[in-house]
């Protein structure tokens, strides 16, 4: 798995012209996706994760959208690719699993048909053969009585099964990149675990690279190899799982990690929480976007910090914070995973 990156994204920017102004949903996102790895993209709701993911598949080409930067996949430039070129990539090379399994499947089409449709869009497979393949796929993702379920309608399946159908759909053409956009948020914990396991084991079997979009750090800790933390459209930190969890460099990451309640630890007196509200993407603070909420803000924060490696010896760990590494380590009180910026709630508003 040490060949070059499968997908190279450089300075990707997406903005939408909306009623309230220009929404910079994605801003200067840069990363590489290596074959077989799981890259987790985390961040608060609305920080641009989905837009980023969908842009890679050309699914955000709305009339009000504007794009910058590049995304190379196997020699193809995804951002400016023609519809027809993209169409050939979609589903076949890069496949996507969406958040809500109910709304992501056409409610009035049998699930088998929906998968067959994709197979036939990319391969000239006769219907019976495609059907057979679908039955096998459904079986493989752990749907009981898969052969009967080919003809089921989405509403006849439970949430977990529907999400499995989505996975089967994504896998049906053997893609090399799988983008999973919050694949488990709508599901129960027990089902969530089943689905994550599924994605993980399929990655292992097919060797596909996975971009996992989520805001659940628990999920990330479980299956990701690398993590990109997004805040207000930008990647603020990026690195391996261990690096992010045990040596987070950006105060936002600290807050994020800190505000999680954990069953495996003693109950803290107070839960650490990030004060304030996330900024509007149409009206982001200048410089470091986290500045207004950051307790460690200082003069330099008015300039946009670049996403660069700041730790000696770890070129893979990039972040966007001006604070010197040592000072950061001091300030975050060392205990990994429990760094908090907790305050009395009264101060949280304003």
């Amino acid at each position, binding site marked *: 798995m040490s060949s070059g990156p499968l997908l190279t994204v450089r300075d990707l920017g997406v903005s939408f012209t*909306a*009623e*309230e102004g220009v929404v910079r949903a994605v801003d200067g996102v840069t990363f590489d996706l290596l074959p077989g790895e799981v890259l987790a993209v985390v961040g608060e709701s*609305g920080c641009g994760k989905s837009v980023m993911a969908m842009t890679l598949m050309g699914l955000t080409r709305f009339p009000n959208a504007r794009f910058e930067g590049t995304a190379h996949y196997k020699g193809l430039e995804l951002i400016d690719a023609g519809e027809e070129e993209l169409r050939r990539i979609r589903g076949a090379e890069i496949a996507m699993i969406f958040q809500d399994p109910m*709304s992501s499947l056409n409610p009035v089409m049998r699930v088998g048909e929906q998968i067959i449709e994709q197979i036939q869009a990319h391969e000239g497979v006769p219907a019976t053969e495609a059907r057979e393949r679908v039955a096998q796929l459904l079986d493989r993702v752990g749907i009981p009585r898969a052969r009967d379920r080919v003809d089921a309608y989405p509403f006849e399946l439970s949430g977990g099964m529907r999400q499995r159908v989505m996975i089967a759909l994504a896998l049906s053409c053997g893609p090399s990149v799988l983008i999973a956009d919050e694949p488990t948020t709508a599901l129960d914990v027990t089902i969530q675990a089943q689905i994550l396991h599924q994605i993980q084991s399929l990655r292992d079997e097919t060797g596909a690279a996975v971009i996992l979009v989520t805001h659940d750090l628990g999920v990330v800790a479980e299956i990701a190899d690398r993590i990109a933390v997004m805040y207000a459209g930008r990647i603020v930190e990026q690195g391996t799982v261990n690096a992010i969890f045990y040596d987070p460099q950006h105060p936002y990451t600290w807050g994020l990690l800190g505000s999680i309640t954990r069953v495996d630890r003693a109950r803290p007196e107070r839960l650490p929480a990030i004060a304030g509200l996330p900024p*509007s*993407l*149409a*009206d982001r603070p200048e410089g470091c976007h986290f500045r207004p909420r950051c307790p460690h803000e200082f003069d330099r924060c008015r300039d946009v910090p670049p996403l660069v490696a700041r730790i000696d010896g770890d070129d893979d760990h990039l972040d966007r914070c001006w604070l010197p590494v040592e000072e950061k380590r001091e300030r975050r009180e060392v205990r990994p995973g429990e760094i908090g910026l907790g305050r009395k709630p009264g101060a949280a508003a304003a």
Partner: protein
Amino acid sequence: MEERLDSVLPEGVETAVRSDALEETAEREHVAGVGPWRLAARRLRRDRIAMGFGMVFLVLVVICLAAPTWATDVAHTGPLKNHLTDTVVVDGERKDVVSLDGVPIGPTWQGEFFLGADTNGRDTAVRLLYGGRNSLEIGVLAALITTVLAVWAGLLAGYARGFTDAVISRSLDVIWAYPVALLAIALGTALSLQGLQIGPIEISGESKLIPILIIAVVYVPYMARPLRGQVLALRERDFVEAARAQGAGPVRIMLTEILPNLSSTIVVFFPLMVANAILLEAALGFLGVGVRAPEPSWGNMIGDGVKHILTGPHLAIVPGIMLVATVLALNVFGDGVRDAFDPRARIHLEH
């Protein structure tokens, strides 16, 4: 806001409910205390086409309101005044208002008989303006009555559910299944004979109240059914539950929790209802059961005009254009209002 989405829908037309659409946009507007109304007003103001047509409507209303002025100061005649044997000087030439053949004069483009005369020698322009007053009055009043009835029906049926709902809904179904125009003409004809007597109130057969009431009733299901659906959805919403949890009674909940949430639907519906009511009145007028002759309304003017379309095409064309202009203006404006309240909502119009 889902309630708004359902609002403009008839039952059975499913909506993909997006609870976040407006909220999210709104959230980004960091203006203190901007209510949904003001937001909508702001959006509406930005919609040039809708505002333009809204202005057109206003102008039409003003023109119609000015009918008496036109009649006395410009045309020097009333809407009911016959001028069968009169003559008028057009371009220095004296012409019969109505020829011996019974052919009325066409538009003279001057004060008297500006838009020509009808077969009774009545001034078309004057009748047009007075007819507009009638049509508008009927449209607005009928829409108001419909709204009041429909809101109550929708609130009661949707909130009480069960038996009350069954009774109200089935009644609405019957009105709905009853061919609309037929219901209207049947009632119109029956009532025109003897008028209507409800207790001490007596309405004569020629009264405008009759078409108003008929139109109002006919359109109640049109509005009540979506409202009921909306109430059904609203009553399950947490904030209604919250009110109940605080001890609010059903009437209070209906009036203070649910009704305000119907208001945007009502506001959206209203111009469209007025437009529809004007159209239905026209249809009734055409069939001779709307505003009673000789009182003019655009509908009965068209109806009369159509009979003389070969000799006096202006008799049908002129009121028709006014009618279309008014209804169109209302429709476009109503559309704008709808968009302003919910840019994502769907429309549903009925004839």
